[in-house]
């Protein structure tokens, strides 16, 4: 790569005014991100509505079609959303649907867009993964699964990330999860003491290295029974 290959932010839209710190931003209304209208025109059935709150554009979309819409935002030369900022979810107090939130950014056009999709909590929580589009979604989606229990369809490695694999208390950021955890202190202590501290590798990791054969015999027997090992 040479100096001529450097990507300058805003290169796709050279005539645009220089960005400035927003002042006196209105609570509701204001100029929407042009990509919202383009998205609604391209996918009339999948875009439900567009909000502008505190100067930030939110496009509400149908959850099942999120992958398709974000793929278009990423690929289309008039959009160029090549950067995924965040994948997260919001659950409101007092019930109601769960919202999955994607923050995407177009470096070329200096645009920022929020996409939101609602999931009914009485049904399985599944949305399409954007990992095939952005590799940066890998850990963000895993964290979202870990904290909310939302499964991302198409993600290659949907495991817990911040909590350990044997964590049984549920999904911590859900509103029905108490601040102190679901289990009592004594139950948490019992579980911690009964965990096997010497088994530090998961079966997957042992297999990749062919190290399974070198393990002590009794450990092999225990792992062979399918006992899930601790981290």
């Amino acid at each position, binding site marked *: 790569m040479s100096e001529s290959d450097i*990507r300058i932010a805003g290169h796709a839209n050279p005539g645009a005014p220089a960005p400035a710190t927003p002042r006196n931003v209105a609570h509701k209304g204001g100029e929407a991100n042009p990509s919202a209208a383009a998205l609604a025109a391209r996918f009339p059935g999948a875009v439900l509505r567009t909000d502008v709150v*505190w100067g930030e554009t939110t496009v509400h979309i149908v959850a099942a079609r999120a992958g398709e819409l974000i793929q278009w935002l990423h690929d289309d030369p008039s959009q160029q959303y090549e950067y995924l900022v965040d994948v997260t979810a919001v659950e409101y107090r007092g019930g109601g649907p769960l919202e999955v939130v994607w923050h995407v950014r177009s470096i070329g056009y200096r645009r920022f867009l929020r996409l939101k999709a609602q999931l009914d909590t009485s049904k399985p929580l599944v949305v399409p993964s954007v990992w095939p589009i952005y590799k940066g979604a890998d850990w963000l989606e895993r964290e979202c699964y870990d904290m909310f229990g939302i499964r991302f369809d198409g993600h290659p490695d949907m495991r817990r990330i911040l*909590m*350990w694999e044997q964590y049984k208390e549920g999904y911590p950021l859900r509103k029905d999860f108490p601040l102190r955890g679901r289990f009592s202190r004594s139950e948490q202590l019992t579980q911690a003491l009964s965990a096997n501290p010497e088994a530090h590798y998961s079966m997957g990791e042992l297999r990749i290295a062919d190290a399974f054969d070198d393990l002590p015999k009794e450990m092999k027997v225990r792992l062979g029974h399918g006992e899930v090992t601790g*981290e």
Partner: protein
Amino acid sequence: MTTRTVEVALSTSGLDARGNPVRTPLVTDAGGNIVPMTAPPAAEPDFGGEHMLINIGPQHPATHGVLRLVLELDGETVVRCVPHVGYLHCGFEKIGEYRQYNQIIPWTDREDYLNSLGNNVAFVLSAERLFGVEITPRCTVLRVIAMELSRIISHLVWVGTTSIDIGAFTPFLWSFQERENVYRLLEAWTGARLTTSGTRVGGMIADIPAGWLDDLKNFVRTFPRTIEEVDAMLTKHAIWVGRTVGLGAMSADEALNHGLSGPMLRASGVAFDVRKDQPYLDYETYDFEVPVGTAGDVYDRYLVRIEELRQSVRILEQAIARLPDGPVNVDDPRLILPPKSKATSEMESMIHHFKLVMEGPRPPIGEAYVPVESPKGEKGYYMVSDGTSKPVRWRIRPPSFVNLSAIPKMVEGHLLSDVIAINASIDIVMGEIDR
């Protein structure tokens, strides 16, 4: 068999088109000739599938906290890397849902603890958007000073610890000495070195004390010398160059696709800086450059961070020159507590104080995400309000978390010893990754 011994420390193999020295180190080849170093060989010969499992961390000094890397090695070459995080997870985001906005600020100190004052500012920027508050001109400039001082601390710690990881000890001492000078300034301002909690929604915890600006001017005058010393020590040092060039390279497309941000993204040749491209705190009115690399390797990340230190000094100089007089906090009784002397002597102020502390300010229903350029990358707090005094959701967009997620891509194919250098170059803070 070729040797990779680095022979000539300060020589270069020529000048590039713009007259700058080419930074390819010189090495001896098989015939004993001195030639420019070529990229290290992609992979060592396959030893018939005898792969070895190596576990680095979580208690390992070179992982900068409690990161665990499980590596599959073929000889000394990394074939696969499986990172494990979460050892420091404390549920910050969950706790934040049970706290008022000002009560969350101490939690922001404790995630990226090398940038605590910068996190405080980033948090209140989002919160103020949610409350619809415009801060005072003096507060704006003070916050710029706060953010740039935090950036200097973070980059100094990075340069110090990374140089130790790679084998240089002296820059660590120099950078930690300067860091102590910054901490002395922060302590005089906020009362704490690390856990500053220096901001409040609508202003700062306090105005700067008398004489503080002179101390800051003194620091700004003397600090560039340390940057130059570190630069002179490392930038052309044979071992440093030999252990950083060509490692963990990410192209611009890969860096964008993996969601890298901050110095990691800019080292890969993407000129994106939130301060320039989505400005906050009037950053568009400051005159500073955004350094960009071309190779995207460990060495370029080092160069970018060193240059950012110089640019932070420039911003600080301009901020000192333009610091206006006037109030620090907004004149808004919904948000700002009355003076303590009044709260203990006047009934109305006492009631006001009590109600504000016990009930907390309530933003209207809405959501806000104001990204800032933290030393690690794009950081932002996404907040959702349902009209009560506590957020429904408080999401930290953690730059080191996303940057670290690309580590398998960066280390695979490199040697085990290079994993340490590549891991160091990401500039991770586990407090921010695990939250």
